[in-house]
């Protein structure tokens, strides 16, 4: 049944390509004719095609790397995050991809993910650190399955082709509209352009301007309409791959409940993500201009799938939620789809909290390996300081905006501690025992304001201005720290 989707996609690709190509050619012709009524049209078409070819070549040669770099993604190996790697491999098998996708982590707290790949043989999945922190195994599987479906159904391909076309159209019309500002006061030009009366020339200009304004809008709407439908289809395929609709549903719930902006996302990369990263909470975007279908509706569809996990069941749930029977999936594909039962949830550890902590530890370790240092702001945000930062700079907290001085001595201690914990992990009990026996820790307060310092275990402790006790207990290792004034 996936073949139907792929075939349909390919047909769609061609249609889209044709329509957008026509728009581009007409645009080129009209704009060219404005400058020279006889030969300008052809020149305009050649110029527009030239821009398109250039953008295509640029994308084909290293578009993937550019996108990943813009998004701030780092490639990882299996030992950095075994679970993520395993889940990607599982979905690669389920989707029948010919090669293992590269796995990337984006160093951002906002939970989101995307996949790219012009060919299924050469694809990549990127998830943010925030996503890894929050999702459990089934949810992560749902998200990765959604992304793998994009690769499997050739969505990435289609969207790339469409994106290039859209880009060319926007570029051509922008160049034209800008050039109008420098339009020399008319009459000389009319005479030079051999045939055609001045009236005709004026009409041509008017047509060109209208077209230059409308074409990008039209192309964008076309692009977005396709993008939205792809998201539903990818959800449907993801459910079929994982056989577990609740996983993706609760992942989407968690993602939508977090109110952090993804900083690396922009207009170009936004359609790639599983959830539109540019939508601000509370802002009502009109349906036509958004890259993704409303997330609440996606969740509703997934949550109402109770009888089966195949693509037919998704179609049923889709029609139920939309209250009309718009065919999302071609009927020929539906007929072939066989019923698939929903599987049980993967038994998750009861100490799931600890599990998330380990995930966060892994992320921190990854940064520690890259010579990052950690510092907790007064507002509670743990800041990661890159090694390039000079010692007496102040860092402003990205959440509350306070300026924080970097305490050099403390950072060194943390670095040492992290170096220890990279090695084999000591068991939790061993740690506390040796802690209570070892010499007492001491911290001398510098003033009466907010102060942050590191415990020997690496946990950063804070003293408020109101604190006046003699002793502080570290929350993670249980050691006591004497406070001196």
């Amino acid at each position, binding site marked *: 049944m996936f073949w139907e989707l792929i075939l349909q996609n390919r047909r769609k690709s061609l249609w889209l390509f044709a329509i957008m190509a026509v728009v581009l050619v007409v645009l080129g012709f009209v704009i060219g004719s404005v400058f020279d009524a006889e030969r300008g049209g052809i020149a305009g078409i050649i110029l527009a095609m030239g821009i398109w070819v250039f953008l295509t070549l640029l994308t084909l040669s290293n578009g993937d790397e550019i996108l990943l770099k813009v998004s701030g993604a780092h490639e990882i190996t299996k030992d950095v995050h*075994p*679970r993520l790697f*395993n*889940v990607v*491999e*599982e*979905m690669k*098998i*389920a989707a*029948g991809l010919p090669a293992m996708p590269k796995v990337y982590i984006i160093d951002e707290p906002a939970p989101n993910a995307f996949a790219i790949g012009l060919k299924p043989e050469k694809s990549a999945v990127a998830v943010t650190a925030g996503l890894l922190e929050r999702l*459990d*195994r*089934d*949810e992560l*599987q749902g998200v990765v399955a959604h992304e793998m479906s994009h690769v499997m159904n050739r969505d990435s391909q289609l969207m790339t082709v469409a994106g290039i076309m859209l880009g060319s159209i926007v570029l051509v019309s922008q160049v034209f509209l800008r050039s109008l500002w420098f339009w020399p006061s008319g009459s000389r030009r009319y005479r030079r352009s051999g045939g055609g009366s001045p009236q005709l020339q004026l009409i041509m200009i008017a047509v060109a301007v209208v077209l230059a304004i409308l074409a990008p809008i039209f192309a964008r709407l076309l692009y977005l309409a396709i993008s939205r439908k792809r998201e539903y289809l990818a959800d449907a395929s993801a459910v079929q*791959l994982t056989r577990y609709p*609740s996983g993706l549903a*609760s992942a989407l719930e968690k993602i939508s409940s977090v109110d952090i902006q993804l900083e690396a996302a922009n207009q170009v990369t936004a359609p790639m993500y599983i959830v539109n990263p540019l939508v601000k909470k509370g802002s009502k975007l009109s349906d036509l201009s958004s890259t993704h279908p409303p997330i609440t509706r996606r969740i509703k569809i997934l949550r109402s799938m109770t009888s089966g996990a195949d693509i037919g069941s998704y179609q049923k749930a889709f029609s139920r939620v939309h209250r009309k029977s718009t065919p999302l999936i071609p009927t020929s594909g539906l007929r072939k789809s066989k019923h698939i039962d929903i*599987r*049980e*949830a*993967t*038994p*998750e*550890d*009861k*100490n*799931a909290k*600890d*599990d998330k902590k*380990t995930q966060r530890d892994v992320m921190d370790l990854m940064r520690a390996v890259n010579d990052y240092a950690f510092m907790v702001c007064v507002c509670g945000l743990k800041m990661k300081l890159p090694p390039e930062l000079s010692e007496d700079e102040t860092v402003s907290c990205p959440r509350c905006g306070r300026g924080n001085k970097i305490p050099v001595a403390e950072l060194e201690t943390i670095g040492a501690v992290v170096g220890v914990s990279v090695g084999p*992990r000591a*068991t*939790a009990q061993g740690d506390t025992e040796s802690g209570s026996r070892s010499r007492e820790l001491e911290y001398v307060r510098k003033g009466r304001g907010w102060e942050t310092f590191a415990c020997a275990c690496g946990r950063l402790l804070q003293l408020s201005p109101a604190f006046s006790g003699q002793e502080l207990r570290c929350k993670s290792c249980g050691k006591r720290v004497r406070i001196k004034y």
Partner: protein
Amino acid sequence: MFGWILLGLAAAVVFYFVGIYNQLVRLRNRVKNMWSQIDVQLKRRHDLVPNLVETAKGYMKHERETFEEITKARSRAMGAGSVGDKSKAEGNLTGALGRFMLVVENYPDLKANQNFLALQEELTSTENKIAFSRQGYNDSVLFFNNKIQMFPSNVIANSFNFTEEEFFEIEEAGERKVPKVSFSESTES
């Protein structure tokens, strides 16, 4: 003229049958390829089991039968030859591992062990991979067997010794239901 047409027809028929033969070969290779993917995962699981037992032994002193059951199931699974035997033996191993994980619930210290957690993740992932690749394998076997039984490809299949392949079925009943009893509370809301 008539001779040429006859020759053309004969050539078309030959090409047609060559095409069918090639398709059969392609399908058989796909089945083999799919099977090797499952086999990799099965071997991976066999490798994981001793590590798992070794890690757990220190914590679970009074569960000798559980360990014995797993070890036996593993060696039986490793010795199994044909696909049919394998699916039975691997089903047993899956069941034994499921029961083992049930017992583990009683040992919180073991569950906090980092090494054990890593092994558990590997085991879960391997079982998922087996399940997912099993799907693809069975689909390709179904397609291949259909081709062998149906006319006209069955003529070619019979004369060139293409034999039907076996499905790989793990009895899911025991495997899936056992964990449900103990983990039901941890499913998300």
